[in-house]
């Protein structure tokens, strides 16, 4: 609860004080949530035993609807990601002109924390939609071009998806014995095969749009490209993880009865998405567009890994969710710096920036390598586990998914080459050290997770085992 | 006066009201002069008023609830007439017409 209230209060404060207070101060203030998280862990004495502990539970407007929040390893990792990235996103703001950006981002933080902690179906849905509101305004107000067209496309897309999820949730609710939206109650509903396919399809549609899984991705590239960098960071760094998280926490246990039906479909679509995104990324000129398609490629692999239902795939996927959040935010951060200091983010306009700032070039390179999953950077362990799981599921899909490590190297190195290396026409203004600090933090994480991924695996594995148990319970109903 | 009701059924008033109401409705649909339209609406309202009064008699309750409603309908009718005619006057001032089929700006 604390980490929902805190950002909300900050958001209100930020909205009222306007631009009187420096954005850096807000960035630092928003770190408070991170400490609140640690406090919560101490306060509630949560053990990492896989159980989704309630931290807050009051009845809401009806008997079956509770305002329930809970924490376990998986949720913990996700809110860690959220509360870690939001301050960095705020610090990445370059101008003072976008006045309502900070309140909106902080509001978003509250909603995102809610999504990851909600233990009640309706709460989940409400937070899910709540998160859409600030990002809608961020995109609408500060998009570089075609603001309305892109934003409305994105909004309607995700909104239709959410409605499908709501339908599924309500169906499950009606099926519960004492009409409750509580997670455990929804989980205990036993559906027959047909029902479960429909319910699953509802969930899946919502999550597939958010992730996005091919072919539901057509909102993504334009939104990422046109949105302000902070919007792109929020979308790709955290919001996208909502879809993956939902897939793991809600879709797979709830529709376990039909998971055998969805498994090959999702995996094949995801693998198509992997190659599809990578192939498109190869020729992109706009840096943000390039990252958008690379993101499509990477999350496809995560979704595929989840759907293999193997411990390796799911844990690797969760690890990769965390890692992808860090990498993609770092990439957008870099693009934002390049755009504001070199005046363009078109590869054809850039080049030769490395000679202006060696430190920046080095950090950029490490992030690029992390994204390209070079060993000892954070991209590698997750990708290794995911590829292994997909490979074990089916050799052919494994090989196709594996092409990502080649294609990713192709487009990431191209991106680095044409922006930083060569003679180049562009020049880079002086970058303040303060602006480098967030990037330094991210890069430190890139290397730390790359060397010791087990630290994170230890955090999540009890919860993952529990979720896998729930999936197999749910699956076992039919057999 | 009571004796006449010995043979009078509620249905007769219902039929009468219905006929009046539908005549009013026909007028609304058929006529194009906005003033006539408003008058037809008054006619329809009166049909309803009549029915309220009849039901008040029919129920035989001691509170005259039916008659109360007639008052309120009258209030609304009066207000409606006032505003409606004001709008009409303004429309006429701008367009020199009171023909409703001419007023089709709802299209856009």
């Amino acid at each position, binding site marked *: 609860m604390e980490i929902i209230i805190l950002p909300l209060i900050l958001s209100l404060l930020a909205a009222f004080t306007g631009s009187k207070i420096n954005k850096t101060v807000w960035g630092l203030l928003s770190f408070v949530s991170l400490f609140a998280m640690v406090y919560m862990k101490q306060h509630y004495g949560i053990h990492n035993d896989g159980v989704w502990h309630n931290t807050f539970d009051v009845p809401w407007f009806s008997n079956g609807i509770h305002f329930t929040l809970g924490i376990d390893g998986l949720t913990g990792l996700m809110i860690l990601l959220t509360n870690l990235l939001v301050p960095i996103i705020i610090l990445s703001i370059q101008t003072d002109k976008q006045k309502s950006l900070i309140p909106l981002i902080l509001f978003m933080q509250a909603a995102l924390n809610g999504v990851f902690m909600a233990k009640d179906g309706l709460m989940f849905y409400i937070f899910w939609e709540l998160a859409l509101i600030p990002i809608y305004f961020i995109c609408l107000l500060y998009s570089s071009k075609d603001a309305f067209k892109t934003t409305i496309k994105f909004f309607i*897309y995700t909104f239709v998806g959410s409605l499908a999820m709501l339908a599924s949730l309500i169906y499950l609710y009606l099926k519960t014995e004492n009409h409750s939206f509580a997670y455990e109650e929804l989980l205990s509903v036993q559906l027959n095969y047909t029902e479960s396919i429909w319910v699953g399809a509802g969930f899946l549609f919502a999550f597939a749009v958010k992730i996005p899984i091919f072919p539901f991705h057509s909102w993504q590239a334009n939104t990422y490209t046109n949105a302000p960098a902070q919007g792109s960071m929020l979308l790709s760094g955290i919001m996208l993880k909502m879809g993956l998280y939902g897939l793991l926490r809600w879709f797979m246990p709830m529709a376990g009865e039909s998971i055998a039906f969805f498994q090959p479909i999702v995996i094949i679509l995801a693998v198509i998405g992997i190659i599809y995104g990578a192939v498109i990324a190869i*020729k992109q000129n706009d840096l943000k567009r390039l990252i958008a398609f690379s993101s499509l490629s990477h999350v496809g692999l995560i979704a595929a890994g989840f759907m293999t239902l193997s411990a390796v795939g799911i844990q*690797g996927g969760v690890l990769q969710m965390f890692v992808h959040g860090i990498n993609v935010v770092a990439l957008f951060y870099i693009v934002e710096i390049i755009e504001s200091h070199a005046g363009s983010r078109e590869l054809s306009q850039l080049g030769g920036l490395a000679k202006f700032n*060696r430190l920046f070039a080095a950090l950029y390179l490490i992030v690029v390598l992390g994204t390209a999953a070079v060993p000892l950077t954070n991209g590698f362990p997750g990708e290794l586990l995911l*590829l292994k799981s997909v*490979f074990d599921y089916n050799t052919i899909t494994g090989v196709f998914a*594996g092409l990502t490590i080649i294609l990713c190297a192709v487009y990431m190195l191209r991106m680095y080459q044409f922006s930083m290396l060569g003679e180049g026409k562009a020049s880079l203004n002086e970058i303040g050290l303060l602006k480098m600090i967030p990037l330094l933090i991210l890069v430190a994480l890139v290397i730390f997770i790359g060397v010791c*991924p087990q630290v994170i695996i230890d955090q999540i594995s009890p919860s993952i085992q529990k979720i896998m148990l729930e999936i197999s319970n749910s699956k076992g109903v039919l057999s | 006066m009571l004796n006449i009701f010995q043979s009078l059924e509620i249905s007769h008033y219902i039929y009468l009201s219905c006929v009046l109401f539908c005549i009013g409705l026909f007028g609304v649909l058929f006529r194009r002069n906005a003033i006539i339209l408003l008058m037809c609406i008054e006619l329809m309202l009166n049909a309803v008023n009549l029915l309220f009064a009849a039901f008040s008699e029919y129920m035989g309750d001691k509170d005259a609830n039916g008659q109360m409603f007639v008052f309120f309908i009258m209030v609304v009718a009066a207000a409606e007439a006032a505003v409606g005619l004001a709008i009409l006057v303004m429309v006429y001032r701008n367009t020199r017409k009171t023909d409703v089929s001419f007023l089709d700006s709802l*299209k856009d």
Partner: protein
Amino acid sequence: MNSIALILGLPLVGFLINGIFGKNLPKSIVGWLGTFTVLASFVIALGVFNDLRHAAIPSEGLHLKLFTFLNIENFNVDFSFTLDRLSIMMTLIITGIGSLIHLYSIAYMHEDEGFYKFFAYLNFFIFNMLMLVLGANFLMLFFGWEGVGLCSYLLIGFWYKNAEYGKAARKAFIMNRIGDLGLLMGLFLIFHQYQSLDYSIVLPKMADGSTSQAMLTAISMCLFVGAMGKSAQIPLYTWLPDAMAGPTPVSALIHAATMVTAGVYLVVRCEALFYLSPITNNVIMWVGLATSIMAALIGLKQNDIKKVLAYSTVSQLGLMFVALGCGAYSAAMFHLATHAFFKALLFLGSGSVIHAMHHEQDIRQMGGLKSKMPITYITFLIGTLAITGFPFLSGFFSKDEILLAAFEHNKIVYILSVISATITGLYMFRMFFVTFHGTYRNHHHSFDKVHESPWQMSLPLMILAVLSVLGGLLNLPSYLGHNVSMKLSHWLAPILPMAESHSELSHNTEFMLVGLVVLLFVLVVLYTRNKYVSKNAVPEEDALTPSTGKVLANKFYIDELYDMVFVKPLELLSALVDNVVDSKLIGGLISGVSTLLVAISGLNKKIQNGNIEYYLTFMVLALALFLGFNLFF
């Protein structure tokens, strides 16, 4: 402290210090720090080598487990290292030659603004290469494998302002990545089959014959794809000549002596696996042979001094793979070692020449340098003699061993290998004579300005020259007597349980074969000397060469072919998918939904004509409909 940790850790420390603080340190400290960390590793490795010689169980080595890298269900991989007889050999080569090349670089790179960066990268490379050979499981190998690929990328593109170099660097990295994918798939198969990636568990299981032939073949083919990428075999060899864009010490260290031999190391490490899959063995042999001959042919017509050496490297690597395919693992390792000596020597020698010629690499612009650069001349001569198989130099023994193994295995392979070896002589002497003999031909720099290199450069040349001469002592052929011969084979024998090399050839046959090779060598020397020294011929311009020569000079148009078959279609596909599939098809599908909605609303719009009468009529009808529905149903 554990010696493995020291061997690995020192270059890492060097990398970190140079990488982080190098910018503010004086050049001398940076250079000597880089050199000494590697040298210290070498010294420690020597100590370990001594320990291993006296170890009780010859197949055992040292172990070091740092921490658990990943542990999910049964997927358990440790960050652990092992140092056995095979890896100590690789370690000695890497750190030994590595420290020489570091020393050399102090002088060679002295003028460069990225001096500290260069040393940081070099140290990082040494660290990764050591991780590759010291890793105790396949994943550690993969770490090093990708790590050296990364360093190779960084160092090829070291002069990052040149876009062409950047392109070459990317080409190298991506081609390596293709191989890496194969290796990764192999890793998955290995884990699938054996539920582990540790050498100590997997290798014995491979050897015990319980694995099906198909699985062995699949695994070995996957690993070989990885080896192809790293060791520049057909079809993934084209990156290596382009990699010469990097500074010359890099070419010597990474692209001649160490990294490119990682593929050989991998095959030798999984000796049991490869030994038991004859199909893969044959593939390896023929691929190696084809690579060897093709690269040698291309080398005949190259005029860039480093390109010649690059193709020579590819050719020699091909020869090593021929040996592996024939099952002569120790012969391959022997050639790996001697090749590391003389190829590093040649590259450093060429670097010395390039340094003297102010970064001129075209041999047509050189000539007559022997008087100006005596040390370089002599050491380069020794290197050339060693690689071409001058009797009793290192290359002579190692190449002969491979040829003998080929003779034993398959006569055709033998003949083709001899041809390849002969061509090696042709292009090496061509280059040597054109560079050092004849008359000086450069008109941009005066001959007087050509100078001998400083001692930091000539010292490594001399040491490597000595090694190139004496390298043969490692593994003298058995006909020279049992006491002195086959030391390397015996050393490696505990690591290679399957392939017990037992020569069935009589010494007479061996002598005859060796004699043949020596004869060919003499003919080659006479021919090239006649052509390039006596007649003072200079290679023609590319455009003037006759058609066959043109094909060779253009490297069989393989780059163009790849460009046409892979690069262009991929780019086309990318454009197609982006512009047609994504925007028109998928985007069209989505906007189709909205278009449909708009069409429906267009229909509705006709009803909504703004006329109240219509609305009223519809309202009344609808009311009647609802009431009627209520009435009748």
